[in-house]
């Protein structure tokens, strides 16, 4: 199983211990995960993420067998298409974008262009609903959560678009899923790093309502405990104990 929602590098608003690829590899091993798709956390806050992407490629090169780079591409930045080509050449399985941080609202044509270009290159586009709970954010962290409307808009952009939406809760997931046609729904998968387990059993309800295969494994390491999604799976009701997750490496096989 692959962790699609891992990052390296420091976070600007609080200290996080050892956000390094070496430790990430050890954590994956401890958690029984075979690899991770890894982004560069500071790049979400850079105006130009290019330097962050270069750091990411360099840092992950010694760990290429387990850690795949997921560069950040900002579609309102000149020459972003070149960065997409570099990502493809580097073997990236996906790219990350942070439209809320870049003040690109739902329906922004530049985000649609990026999603379409990623789809043509057979790269998933990873979106992040949040890095931290709204209630603890630094006063300067004013981006706000990603809006569900932004995800719906991108899912509708074209048939080759593939989205991995991370750090969403149940209401967000349901709002997007039931606001899409069945064909559009198949373009979106979710990590469940922020979905509640028992006693409310949001994850179980989502598995039953929209299907476990629409979910992939993501931890949001190093911001959150890697043990959380595993614990959530372990506490599913017995009838869902064997529920099969989606395979992020097969996103373009559908």
């Amino acid at each position, binding site marked *: 199983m692959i962790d699609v929602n891992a990052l390296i590098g420091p976070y600007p608003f609080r200290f*996080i211990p050892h956000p390094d690829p070496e430790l990430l590899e050890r954590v994956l091993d401890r958690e029984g995960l075979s690899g991770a798709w890894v982004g560069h956390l500071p790049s979400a806050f850079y105006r130009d993420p290019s330097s962050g992407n270069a750091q990411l490629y360099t840092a992950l090169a010694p760990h290429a067998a387990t850690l795949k780079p997921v560069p950040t591409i900002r579609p309102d930045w000149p020459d972003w298409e070149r960065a997409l080509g570099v990502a493809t050449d580097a073997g990236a399985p996906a790219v990350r974008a942070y439209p809320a941080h870049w003040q690109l609202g739902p329906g922004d044509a530049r985000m649609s262009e990026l999603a379409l270009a990623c789809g043509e290159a057979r790269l998933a586009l990873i979106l992040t609903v949040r890095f931290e709970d709204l*209630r*603890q954010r630094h006063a300067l962290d004013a981006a706000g959560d990603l809006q569900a409307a932004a995800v719906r808009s991108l899912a509708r952009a074209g048939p080759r678009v593939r989205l991995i939406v991370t750090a969403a809760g149940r209401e967000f997931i349901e709002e997007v899923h039931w606001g899409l046609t069945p064909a559009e729904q198949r373009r979106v998968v979710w990590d469940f790093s922020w979905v509640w387990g028992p006693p*409310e059993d949001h994850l179980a309800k989502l598995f039953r309502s929209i299907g476990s295969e629409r979910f992939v494994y993501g931890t949001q390491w190093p911001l959150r405990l890697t043990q*959380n999604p595993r614990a959530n799976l372990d506490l599913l009701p017995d009838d869902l104990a064997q529920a099969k997750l989606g395979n992020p490496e097969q996103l373009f096989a559908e």
Partner: protein
Amino acid sequence: MTEPLIDAHAHFLHAGCGRSDWAEVNAARFRAGDKMGITCHVASVLGSYGFNSPTYFPSPSDVMAGNDAMLALCDTEGERVRMLVTVNPNYTERALAEIQRCAARGAVGVKLLASRRADDPLLDPICALAAKHGLPILHHIWQHRRREWPNQEISDGADLARLARRHPTVTFILAHIGGGGDYQHTYAAIRDVENIVADTSGSGVDRGMLDEAVGALGSQRLLWGCDLTMETGLAKLRALENTGLSSADDIKDIRWRNAARVFRLKSPPAPGASPPQAASRPAPKARKKRARK
């Protein structure tokens, strides 16, 4: 699992909370608790959970109905469930009477919500009565209060510290370090107030949260708990064992020994102990509404 495990921060629903799935949610807590090895749920009912009066400002009649439901659950479940008596300090006489009533029937602590700021003098008679009965007070906390939030009169660690200093013989449990807000502020605010312990519950699972809690407060001032998200409780339990910060003995303290001490549990139920009337638990019903926290 051979060790007891006490969830120091649990809640149960009841028929008066306006949710048709209340029994299903309660059953899910027991189901997950059994999987995790929870041997004792220290729990409260928060009035009508907003159905008749606001969750954090419950009316006296809702408080009493909720406590009645909690008492009934304790009767059914035996030592597997222990009760915190919920009160609204804006109704002093009712609050004091409710503590007396429920303490006489085995309540092991008092639950204060966010009906009044923690350092308000209205809390003093409640604390005095808690001291008389030897009851700890679990206080709902917003980690670092930077502004007002709707539907709560929130308190933070600094507010609770002022109350705790006025009542040094009472043990205060600062609720859910993972329950929202800046827990780093909390650690600094309560580090030197020895009669405050903290519970680890809440949906937040930030890396560093537990390490810093152990570093600031020490293992003897942390109680393990879940609140509304049991998967985060399990994740923190596993993380404690992986951080290397706490010894095996320290982990026992966090898992159950601190809670047994604070709640004065003479015999925390051993793993595998069965509730006396588990078969009489209400059957799960279909869900219609969902939680809002």
